[in-house]
């Protein structure tokens, strides 16, 4: 049985734009199409950005569309236990997991590492630019396994609180922290390899 009493959602006045994120999802659960449009308007950029980072070799538009359609379908299940944005990110992560083959992706990422030109010899003391660091880190993130990548992107890059991120990914909080730790170790290892 649910934790709280079930109540039908009825919006008695106002437009969807005036609704909170959660009220918007409730309206969507009741079949309010305007609510779906408003949800898209509010979050499509975040969803696009996250999908683009998570599935770098796939078309983000496809994941954006699938995410909002899945949100439309599963809105009745949304319990408000996390922020709506986190909920959407969780949908993206699920879609990427099932639609992108981890192994081939890892192979492409490893290829990316192996084909990346190694750093040219520098003069002693030459500072590494922030731009160079970002390039290495971007490659290193791509080289992460899917589980580590989604945890790192959600928690660190998108700055979703740990408890919410764990729930969105369907894992325990302890597992999330372990994945983040492993992700950072893996990133450092790749960055080190890129600097040889």
């Amino acid at each position: 049985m649910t934790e709280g009493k079930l109540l039908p959602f009825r919006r008695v006045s106002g437009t969807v734009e005036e609704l909170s994120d959660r009220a918007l999802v409730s309206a969507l659960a009741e079949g309010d199409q305007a609510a779906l449009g408003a949800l898209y308007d509010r979050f499509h950029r975040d969803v696009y950005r996250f999908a683009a980072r998570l599935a770098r070799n796939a078309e983000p538009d496809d994941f954006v569309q699938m995410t909002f359609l899945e949100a439309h379908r599963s809105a009745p299940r949304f319990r408000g236990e996390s922020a709506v944005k986190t909920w959407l990110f969780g949908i993206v992560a699920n879609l990427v997991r099932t639609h992108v083959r981890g192994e081939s992706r890892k192979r492409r990422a490893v290829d990316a590492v192996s084909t990346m030109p190694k750093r040219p010899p520098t003069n002693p003391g030459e500072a590494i630019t922030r731009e160079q660091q970002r390039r290495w880190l971007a490659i290193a993130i791509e080289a992460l396994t899917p589980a580590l990548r989604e945890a790192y992107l959600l928690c660190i890059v998108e700055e979703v609180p740990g408890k919410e991120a764990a729930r969105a990914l369907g894992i325990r909080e302890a597992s999330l922290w372990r994945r983040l730790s492993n992700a950072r170790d893996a990133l450092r290892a790749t960055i080190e390899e890129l600097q040889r």
Partner: protein
Amino acid sequence: MTAQWVPEDNELDAVARTLEANVSSRESAEQLRTSVLASAGAQNQQSRRSPAPFVIAGVAIAAALVLWVGRSAHTSVKLVITSIDIAQYEHTSDWPDYVVHLDDGRLDVQVATLDNGDRFRVTTLDAEVEVRGAHFEVGAEHDRLQSVLVREGRVEVHPKDQQVVILSAGESWNAPKLVQRDEVIAPRTLVVPTPPPIIASTPAVHAKPPHVSRSPEPPAPPPFATPPTPVAPVLAKPGEAEFRAGWAALRAGDASAAAKVFSTACNEALHEPLGEDACFWTGAAAKRAGDTATARTALEHFLKQFPTSPRASEAAALLGWLLYDAGELDAAEQDFHRAEHDRVPKVRDSAQRGLTAIQRKRAP
């Protein structure tokens, strides 16, 4: 010496947050928006395949919700639920044991003849309605079953402390209203002058079977002053009486007695649909009674006998806590993992709390 970048966690994360993000063009975003809304509109029109259980909230007056579930290429629609006026209900379990829990209001339910092994039930706190192919209306108020009206087929009404009621097309059942301690006045719509020997009335509650109506406008019931003689039910399934007695004991607060009786029901009805519930409740009642040894045995037995039961995760969570208390953390962890993705939020939360507790206990 060549400079090396060896970032600490903080620096690594800080740089990660500055990575450039891809953005879509405005035109592309607009096109995508149109596509999403069009597809969603089409989604609303079509029948949907339900891959996983979902929650249905009641809808406003005059906007009945029709739910199409279980459509496949080979079979017609299996189930249609329509909310009559405002109803609050929730889909708590999926096929093969499809359960809808009704809190308040009325539902119109059409269930196609089920395959072997499938069950469909509507539950409230105090009763269950089970069908294998029927069209009926069911009403509840504050989580108590109030009425069942059968339009087609056959419906079993299982009030938790009363005999099972079997209703055929045209028949209805209404909850009795308790007026004084040993006196019951049956609702006006529900008395049959010469009731059939289908229902056994409970002593001190009913004078004669007041629940079944066979005519569209049954006469008003007389008041009952003396307790009736129970009438034996026509249909008695193995373990059924014990199961009901177990429920009665549990509701009376005697979990220990309930566990014993459920255990009997479990043994007698092991290969009946009732057996699964009886075996589960043996363990749950024993745990509630503090009889950890019996609870553990019963829950392990249940999981072995019914590994794919909709209640398997719940049983695993209960067993997990028993093992945790016994210090068997590895075994407890396995059971909590089994339950952590259950569709019922309370079961998931219990499992996740268990896993957190184990982690804390293991921490140096």
